[in-house]
């Protein structure tokens, strides 16, 4: 294997049979290149999907009030249901086992001013748990905390784009913003993967919002997060119980589906995850398909190469080449070529992928990548199959009697 003469012989053969070398090398390089690029694109597609759909916490129930559609216990139909602070407390008390976090939401929109700059922004009055539920990332300062809720402070957390619009390059922490007619102190800046709209929000402690609005205790909607280790059926059971509990409390007919609306994110996530699994399956299928195509390609080339060399191998045998040395030579050459070109193809593919980044974002491919292990395994597999594919015809060629190989057609 490490015989210098053998290498010399192989080098000579390769140098003088450029087309053959190019064909087999190119097949391998192309096969592995396409595999890596396709696999990488598949991963990019998955990245996009994750960003679109799997951003928020998955273990949440979105509870919002509606209008009743049936009369019940003396109440007329078409009654508007409203949530208030006591509902939060009751849910906390009654569902301790399931509960992980809970937050109300009060959505408003207001004119926001800072010095000369002003614009309309949406505000969202929430509790501290909201940070986890929305997967809000704090860039600077902090999120709303329990202290803010209890003392009804005028502290706010603003989105990255709010800070950019109003403060330009100035540090917003500790500065005061005018929202509507009162001044609020910025205590944090956040970013959110979900997109620009989320980053143009302002978070306010919900108690503060209620204080401003004539000290009421009204809530727009409630978001509940349950313990993530709960099984899917358990989560559904929790949803059912919560619905019954709220209907009972708000005196809604248990058969009335319109009084309370609960959106279970777990349900949606389940569908999305299924879609992601299908996507993964397609990526794997495409990958394996390309790999098989590559293997078939290299096998064909090998059969062709050995066929082309039958006569030469016969001559070599007549001159004293043993079958072993003939097989060894053919294999040595093919493995050398496939290894070299396989690695070239692999590196080319990886380089292409790593230079892609977000350039294909409009085709829903973000940050395509392939892990080194997969790339290496695929390359080795192709080289291995190239060797096997070369071995079979080489063995056959070596076993043909030299006289048959040499015979003129």
């Amino acid at each position: 294997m490490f015989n210098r003469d053998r290498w010399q012989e192989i080098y000579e053969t390769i140098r003088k049979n450029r087309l053959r070398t190019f064909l087999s090398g190119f097949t391998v390089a192309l096969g592995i290149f396409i595999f890596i690029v396709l696999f990488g694109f598949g991963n990019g597609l998955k990245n996009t999907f994750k960003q679109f759909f799997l951003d928020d916490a998955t273990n949440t129930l979105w509870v919002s009030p509606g209008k009743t559609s049936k009369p019940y216990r003396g109440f007329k139909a078409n009654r508007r249901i409203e949530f208030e602070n006591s509902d939060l407390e009751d849910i906390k008390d009654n569902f301790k086992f399931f509960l992980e976090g809970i937050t109300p939401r009060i959505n408003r929109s207001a004119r926001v001013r800072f010095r000369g700059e002003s614009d309309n922004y949406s505000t969202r009055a929430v509790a501290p748990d909201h940070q986890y539920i929305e997967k809000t990332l704090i860039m600077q300062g902090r999120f709303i905390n329990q202290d803010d809720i209890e003392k009804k402070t005028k502290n706010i957390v603003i989105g990255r784009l709010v800070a950019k619009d109003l403060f330009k390059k100035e540090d917003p922490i500790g500065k005061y913003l005018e929202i509507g007619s009162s001044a609020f102190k910025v205590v944090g800046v956040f970013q959110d993967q979900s997109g620009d709209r989320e980053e143009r929000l302002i978070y306010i402690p919900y108690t503060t919002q209620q204080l401003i609005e004539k000290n009421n205790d009204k809530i727009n909607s409630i978001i509940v997060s349950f313990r993530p280790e709960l099984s899917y059926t358990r989560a559904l059971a929790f949803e059912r119980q919560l619905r019954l509990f709220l209907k009972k409390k708000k005196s809604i007919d248990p058969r009335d589906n319109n009084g309370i609306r609960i959106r279970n994110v777990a349900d949606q996530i389940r569908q999305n995850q299924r879609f992601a699994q299908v996507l993964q399956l397609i990526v794997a299928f495409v990958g394996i398909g390309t790999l098989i195509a590559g293997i078939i390609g290299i096998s064909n080339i090998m059969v062709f190469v050995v066929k082309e060399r039958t006569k030469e191998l016969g001559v070599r045998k007549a001159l004293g080449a043993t079958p072993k040395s003939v097989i060894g030579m053919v294999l040595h050459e093919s493995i050398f070529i496939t290894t070299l070109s396989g690695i070239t193809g692999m590196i080319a593919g990886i380089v292409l992928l790593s230079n892609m980044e977000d350039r294909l974002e409009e085709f829903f491919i973000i940050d395509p990548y392939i892990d080194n292990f997969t790339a290496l395994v695929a390359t080795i597999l192709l080289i291995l199959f190239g060797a096997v594919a070369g071995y079979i015809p080489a063995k056959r060629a070596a076993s043909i009697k030299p006289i048959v190989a040499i015979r003129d057609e």
Partner: protein
Amino acid sequence: MISIKNLHKSYKMGDTSLHVLKGIDLNVNQGELVAIMGSSGSGKSTLLNILGMLDLADEGEYLLDNVLIEGLTETTAANYRNKFLGFIFQSFNLINYKNALENVALPLYYQGLGRKIRQVKALQYLEKVGLKDWATHLPSELSGGQKQRVAIARAMASQPKVLLADEPTGALDSKTSSEVMSLIQQINNEGKTILVVTHELDIAHMCKRIVTLKDGVIVEDQSVDQVIVENHV
């Protein structure tokens, strides 16, 4: 040098079997130049292939330089071919991507000689056949006669005991045929044992002994007055 007794060989052709050699006895001494003649189908090429260990006999005894050639594995056959025999083919069978020197050096590679020695020896034999200046040329750049001379140099390079030539002039015109035969005679005169298979009478008469085959048996075995060919090389 060569001694065969009662050699039989048949080929299976589907259901029927074709009996090609039907008991050949032949002795060839050191330094002989033997022509094996016969029309096509007489079994002369089969005989040569068996002598060259490219093919195996069904029956009979074959001694080469007092070594019994029997039950060879592919590997030992290859080693024997390499050590004992040199081949000259009708269609030259040079390796087309190797130049003249590399072709001549190839049997030396299979003898396990070092690169430098191979080069030196190969060049020596090329010089012997008068093609030293053509050492770096590819077979495609050589004439038919030149190719056959390279092939002869290649056959000689491993210093075999016997040279086996299968219709060495079959693909050449009469002038180059004479050149090649002249070279063969010259090598023979230096003491090498050579067997030439041919169906041309004039070529056969350039040898020292003619063995005629017909339908798988030797019908005639006679010494002849050798026609000496002028050396054009």
